[in-house]
């Protein structure tokens, strides 16, 4: 890593981490809602945190955000974002109600959605932890419904205390039949991104040494 830039190879390696995370997250989500889920890992990049906001429509777009901190060998965050409408739809699906029934998330819905976040990130982090050989501890999630900017600024501030950039692994998913698009963001500080790369390199060396 030179300065804050990753080499092409490192970017690919981090993207691979994204794929593993995406695979497990989508399988968990798919089992949970009983529908097939499409995922895409468009990006694993180091970015100025202000730029993340551009992904989900305008800064005033209403979203449901599920957030949970990661500790252990790495310090990071998981942030799941749904446009407001699809947040309501997802509540319908997990609460087994007719599509379009939920007009406003009540406490039970919120709790159910937090559980969705918990299961998805739990699966995803367990896989990552195994793959990277690092201890990752997932914490209890919290949920908020607000404008996109307001949800994001919490996370931006969290990372912004130490640096202006972070490693963002962006996973886009879509529950196909009911059209529920959303984002699953894995965020790590640059120091933690370095730790991820180091353990990836170690793994790679072991692998080629074993041949």
């Amino acid at each position, binding site marked *: 890593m030179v300065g804050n830039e990753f080499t092409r190879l490192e970017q690919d390696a981090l993207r691979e981490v994204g794929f593993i995370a995406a695979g497990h997250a989508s399988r968990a989500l798919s089992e949970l809602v009983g529908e097939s889920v499409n995922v895409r890992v468009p990006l694993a990049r180091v970015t100025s945190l*202000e730029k993340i906001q551009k992904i989900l429509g305008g800064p005033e777009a209403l979203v449901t955000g599920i957030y949970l901190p990661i500790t252990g060998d790495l310090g990071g965050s998981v942030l799941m974002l749904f446009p407001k409408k699809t947040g309501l739809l997802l509540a319908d699906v997990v609460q087994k109600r007719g599509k379009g029934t939920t007009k406003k998330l009540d406490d039970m819905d919120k709790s159910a959605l937090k559980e969705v976040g918990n299961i998805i990130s739990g699966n995803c982090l367990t896989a990552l932890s195994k793959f990277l050989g690092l201890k990752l501890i997932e*914490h209890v999630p*919290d949920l908020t419904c607000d404008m996109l900017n*307001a949800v994001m600024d919490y996370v931006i*501030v969290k990372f912004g205390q130490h640096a202006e950039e972070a490693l963002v692994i962006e996973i886009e998913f879509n529950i196909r039949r009911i059209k529920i698009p959303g984002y699953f963001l894995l965020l790590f500080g640059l120091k933690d991104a370095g730790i991820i790369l180091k353990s990836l390199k170690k793994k790679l060396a072991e692998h080629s040494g074993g041949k």
Partner: protein
Amino acid sequence: MPDLDELDKARRSGMAEEIEVGMGNLKVASSPDKLVARGIGSCLVITFYDPRLHMGALAHTMLPDSRKAESMSLPAKYAGNAIEIMIEKMTAMGSRLYDIEAKIVGGANMFPNIEHENAVTMIGEENIETVKKTKRRGHQAGGRGRGR
């Protein structure tokens, strides 16, 4: 008082500009232009308005003060510094300190149930505290402080 017809004309003719102030930034503008910051969570927005000159400043701040981090590439990242810059800019443009009306918006705790990150979740409140303290300093210097 501003000439409302004049302002209205300016607005309709498209001369009035809406100026977005992104996170960590600070802008100064005069009527009929508008300063806007959208979707505020734990960030804290500080506004200054000088009714005599129809001029204002808006800072979209993220953190309480600059002691906790070293990087300073964004002018209004820290509430403490932002106020000082705002005062500097406004007075440079002819504002008198005691004419300035100040308001603060934001400072929410977006995820109150995340106990693990008390240090972060308290940022909203800490932002408010810092601004209040800095504002108080201003009042002692003779400010009228019509702000809330």
